[in-house]
């Protein structure tokens, strides 16, 4: 048996264990198991996984561990509860993610035990972001977690959520395989910030599926600073006319880390707007992947879609694979995409050095400047400072090429 087949067999064993529990989530788990049994862990023959190999994760014997969220107390206008403690039966869950397309989400669904639901009440205007910390403590054997979050923004409401993934510096490998479902009702607005700053022994996969109703608005910001291997799938369905999404990302590759962002924006109806800005900084022998797919369905006229992916390579050993993919089936649309790969500008480096900054400081400053645009949009001054400093620290820890 190959290592991959052996890993699939072990993971299916975990799925079977989970399937023995009988609770309201059992049917969903069965659907997850069925999809995962059909696909198994993806290998690099699958187009969506061409550049990202799960090989380092496959060799480990994962044990399932519960996810903890430690949410801050919900502000007025927000209801927050777990799937198990749901006040009125089991809330809708699992209807936004395509399990056949996403093997890891299928695995997470097969192992689903509990999750967190965040729901705004209609027309609530909640300025303060709701913060969820999905940190893991010191661990002693390879642990797999499948945190699940469902966010429902009710009609006319506005809210912001911060998901913070960090982990204790000590401990063995951990694999966070998160699924986040977001449903945004008419004229509602949600701003999602995802912070991924785990250590070099952490594997991280997240699958975020978003649906927008008429005139709804979604802003996401995914900041990846750590983790051995990070794969983010973000799928946004513009299902209501006049809906808008703005997807930003910043990923930092240091050491031999791999950061892979796959986005899919599906313009299903007319007058949708989408903006994407992903910026990558890659050092050492790290590897970045960006694949941005935009679909404009037949009839989705007056779609306005723009995508940009710019990358800064800090070393000769770093690599980026960037691929925009536009599939346009309507004729009255405005779609653009651009990607760039560059190094630090020699003239700018000389300018800073001629002002007495040494080469290391100059490189760090230019790198921070490249990322600043993404940090500037973070929802609080505290986060801007904290993340900016953490980014600077991680960049500074890299040696000069």
């Amino acid at each position, binding site marked *: 048996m190959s290592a991959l087949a052996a890993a699939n067999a072990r993971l299916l064993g975990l799925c079977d264990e989970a399937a023995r529990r009988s609770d309201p989530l059992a049917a969903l788990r069965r659907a997850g198991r069925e999809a995962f049994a059909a696909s198994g862990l993806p290998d690099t023959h699958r187009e969506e996984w061409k550049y990202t190999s799960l090989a380092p994760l496959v060799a480990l014997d994962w044990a399932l561990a519960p996810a903890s969220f430690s949410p801050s107390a919900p502000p007025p206008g927000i209801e927050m509860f777990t799937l198990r403690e749901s006040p009125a039966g089991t809330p809708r869950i699992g209807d936004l993610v395509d399990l056949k397309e996403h093997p890891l989400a299928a695995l997470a669904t097969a192992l689903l035990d509990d999750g967190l639901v965040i729901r705004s009440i209609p027309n609530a205007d909640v300025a303060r972001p709701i913060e969820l910390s999905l940190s893991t403590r010191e661990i002693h054997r390879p642990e797999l977690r499948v945190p699940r979050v469902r966010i429902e923004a009710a009609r006319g409401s506005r809210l912001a959520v911060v998901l913070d993934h960090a982990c204790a510096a000590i401990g063995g490998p951990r694999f966070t395989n998160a699924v986040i479902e977001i449903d945004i009702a008419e004229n509602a607005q949600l701003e999602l910030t995802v912070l991924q700053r785990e250590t070099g022994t952490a594997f991280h996969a997240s699958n975020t599926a978003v649906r927008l109703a008429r005139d709804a608005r979604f802003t996401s910001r995914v900041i990846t600073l750590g983790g051995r291997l990070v794969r983010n799938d973000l799928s946004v369905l513009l299902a209501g006319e006049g809906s808008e999404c703005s997807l930003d990302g910043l990923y930092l590759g240091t050491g031999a880390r791999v950061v892979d962002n796959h986005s899919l924006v599906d313009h299903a109806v007319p007058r949708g707007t989408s903006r994407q800005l992903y910026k990558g900084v890659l050092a050492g022998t790290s590897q970045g992947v960006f694949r941005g797919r935009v679909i404009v369905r037949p009839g989705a006229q007056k779609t306005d879609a723009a995508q940009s992916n710019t990358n800064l390579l800090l070393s000769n050993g770093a690599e980026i694979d960037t691929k925009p993919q536009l599939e346009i089936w309507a004729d009255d649309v405005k779609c653009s995409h651009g990607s760039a790969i560059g190094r630090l500008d020699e003239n700018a480096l000389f300018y800073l050095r*001629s*002002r007495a900054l*040494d080469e290391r400081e100059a490189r760090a400053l230019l790198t921070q*400047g490249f990322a600043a645009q993404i940090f500037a949009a973070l929802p609080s001054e505290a986060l801007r400072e904290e993340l900016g400093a953490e980014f600077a620290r991680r960049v500074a820890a890299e040696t000069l090429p």
Partner: protein
Amino acid sequence: MTQHEKRPLLEIRGLEARVGEKQILRGIDLTIRAGEVHALMGPNGSGKSTLAGVLAGRPSFEVTAGSIHFDGRELQGLLPEERAREGMFLAFQYPIEIPGVTNNYFLKAAVNAVRQHRGQDTLDAMDFLALSREKMKIVGMKPELMSRAVNEGFSGGEKKRNEVLQMLLLEPRLAILDETDSGLDIDALRVVASGVNYLRSANRALLVITHYQRLLEYIVPDFVHVLSEGRIAHSGGKELALELEAKGYGWLEKEPPAAGAAQ
């Protein structure tokens, strides 16, 4: 003190340099003493900006022969940042835009790098604010430019004022102004010149690179040199600039190149 005054601040001997495969400087001799203002003129392509870049240590410029002594110390082998800390300053002809880095952050880092080198205490945010406000007034710079990204979206005049502001903050011993007057209207030129003159003192020197005699009405030089094809073709007093303005550079080429520097 008299001993110190006698030693040249900058002494260039037989300097040759190339950029890529192209030989640009073909034997420069120039001596600048503290307290002096030297103007360097010459047609496009004569090597003025290359000389400025070589002095500041631009990595892509290669010195192939000769020596440069700054305050008695050989400059070759010193990194650009080491030269800056020793008191060399180059005001760029085309100041660089640095997106995402505020002018305030950049200037404070630069000032503190120099202060640290001089064994002075570094300035905190409040002290730096006070210092930068004072210097900005001298160059007539709008305070809001401090919270903007370095030179990003600055007008041509704002960029040049920002260069002079940096010079005032870093208090160099030798300031090289590379066509700081280009693209400035007369009012901006006056302000920039007054900033430069503010810095003039007995223990500092200036090397002013310009195409036009106009700037030299405001920053009056002690010596004027004309660079032609990588050599100093002619040196004289401030009246030489007027002569060049009247006659152009053509007449110089008909005469044999002057054998050396101002002294």
